[in-house]
């Protein structure tokens, strides 16, 4: 039955020839565990697409609903937390694997003639993966999302001459808001997936045309020993994919993707930190300050991208053995060590705002505040009514004693006030006062 189906296709589109061309692609020097990264990336990307499509079923890309919809996925939708966890950790895997893939190609000299175009497409793919990572974490609209995007988009604003306009284009306006979220969602779910699929297909297709690079020493041996892509290399790829998949589902189950409190543009006590894979960029921005800032935000990244693009055209020496390319290997070592050190320092960067330890009585007071309808007249951080005074900073103007006397008999303390007496026990009034005191 299956053979007959294949026959039917073969008669029309020569499917056997197509498959055998793909499967018998020779790997000079034989299959190797060093060559698995490309296939693993394809696998993780497919998982990212599937999980992403599922998440999009329950996600709403507007500031009004984004956070609630992600919370729904995380807490209510069956398997929602697992699928979101996979998508979250899958992003980290993509970043690590794309770096390892590039490093392997660099060390093996596989970017050299005739594979320059394959390398160029690869440089594009690295940037797409970075773009995915960056646009992805604004989407939950939590504190981390909001502040990382404020900082990230301001980086674009520091670029000489065009920075101001670029910032507005990236944000869809002067400030981060509704239009920014739409833009990031559009980039993350339409522009980047299509671009990546196009580039990756060409990347794989052209590699097949140019031939796999294989081991660096194969040309010295005659006759050339080689193994086919399928099943020899694919076997090794699949074994690694299996273990990576197990690791990914364990992470998704035991370390679910975090969801911080909803984005609060007025919160000055938050310590913004990017995802770990951007720590090195974060640290770079802490090193270059003031008028040198543009070095970290624009000059170095531009130099890095241009170097990658020009690499196969500047380094035209056909020698592929890393042992005979000492300068290139030193350069690669320097970049790897620098990025690692910046990542570690970035991760250990001191936190400026001491995390606020909220006492139980403040929490209890906050609950009383919500339950007793105080928000109908008073507002905190812009949320609530306008009839009574704004309480955002009430803790710095009123002391505990005054507050409690005021709750018991508002008119006795501030004559002419229309506030009703607060009908709570002394203990509860004390908690409410503690909460008021915490608002500074």
């Amino acid at each position: 039955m299956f053979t007959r189906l294949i026959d039917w296709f073969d008669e029309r589109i020569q499917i056997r020839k197509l498959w055998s061309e793909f499967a018998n692609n020779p790997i000079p020097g034989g299959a190797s565990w060093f060559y698995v990264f490309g296939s693993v990336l394809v696998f993780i990307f497919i998982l990212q697409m599937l999980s992403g499509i599922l998440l999009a079923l329950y996600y709403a890309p507007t500031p009004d609903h984004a956070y609630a919809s992600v919370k729904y996925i995380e807490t209510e939708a069956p398997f929602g937390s697992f699928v979101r966890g996979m998508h979250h950790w899958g992003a980290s895997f993509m970043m690590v694997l794309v770096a390892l893939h590039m490093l392997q190609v660099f060390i093996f000299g596989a970017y050299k003639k005739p594979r320059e175009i394959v390398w160029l497409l690869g440089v594009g793919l690295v940037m797409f993966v970075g773009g995915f990572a960056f646009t992805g974490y604004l989407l939950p609209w939590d504190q981390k999302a909001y502040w990382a995007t404020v900082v990230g988009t301001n980086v674009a604003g520091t670029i000489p001459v065009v920075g101001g306009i670029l910032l507005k284009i990236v944000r869809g306006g002067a400030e981060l808001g509704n239009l920014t979220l739409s833009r990031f969602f559009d980039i993350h779910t339409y522009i980047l997936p299509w671009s990546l699929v196009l580039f990756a297909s060409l990347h794989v297709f052209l590699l097949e045309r140019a031939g796999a690079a294989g081991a660096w020493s194969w040309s010295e041996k005659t006759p050339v020993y080689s193994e086919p892509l399928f099943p020899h290399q694919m076997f090794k790829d699949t074994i690694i994919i299996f273990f990576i998949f197990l690791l990914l589902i364990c992470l998704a189950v035991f370390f679910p993707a975090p969801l911080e409190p909803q984005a609060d543009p007025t919160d000055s006590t938050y310590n913004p930190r990017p995802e770990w894979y951007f720590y090195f960029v974060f640290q770079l921005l802490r090193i270059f300050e003031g008028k040198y800032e543009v070095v970290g935000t624009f000059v170095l990244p531009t130099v890095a991208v241009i170097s990658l693009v020009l690499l196969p055209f500047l380094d035209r020496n056909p020698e592929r053995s890393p042992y005979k390319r000492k300068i290139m290997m030193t350069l690669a070592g320097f970049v790897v060590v620098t990025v690692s050190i910046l990542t570690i320092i970035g991760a250990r960067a001191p936190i400026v705002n001491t995390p606020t330890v909220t006492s139980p009585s403040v929490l209890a007071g906050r609950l009383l505040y919500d339950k007793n309808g105080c928000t109908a007249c008073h507002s905190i951080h812009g949320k609530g009514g306008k009839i009574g005074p704004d309480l955002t900073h009430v803790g710095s103007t009123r002391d505990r004693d005054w507050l409690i006397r005021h709750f018991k008999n508002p008119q006795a303390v501030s004559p002419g006030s229309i506030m009703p007496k607060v009908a709570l026990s002394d203990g509860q009034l004390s908690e409410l006062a503690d909460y008021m005191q915490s608002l500074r």
Partner: protein
Amino acid sequence: MAEQEVSRRKFMIRTIVGIVAFIGAVLAVPFSGLGILPALRGNKAGWSDAGTIQDMVVNEPQERRFMQIVKSGWMEEKEERSVWIVRRQDNSLTAYSPNCPHLGCGYRWFREDQRFKCPCHGSVFDINGKVLAGPSPRPLDTLETRVEDGRIMIQYEVFQLGIARKLVA
């Protein structure tokens, strides 16, 4: 090809197929679960207030409109609903879902004929919801009711249409 090489190839191909099948099977459950299960959840949304019982005349069906709070994913929406309510001789209440069980059209009570009539395909029901004529495959769908402080409370639900059995949609 040497015999050893042939069996090595076979082993590799079997391993690849096995791992791909394993990954597919592991993912099928959570992926289809997240895609499908939330859509299958019932839509029971608690009791809604459909007005007072005082102005209900015995054996005179009345249409009542009310707002029902419906949870839709992460949002709570207010939907306008209507039901037909009948007050019986013994003061008990019967509430009918407003959609004809045939294909969902809105039917009305015709006092002069003492019949519920559907304008779409001509289904006719008596005051007890029994089918007297037309294509309706089952009687009018009843909803749970109770009276609380003189107010009629309704447990509003939506049913599958066009079939003989009354099943919650």
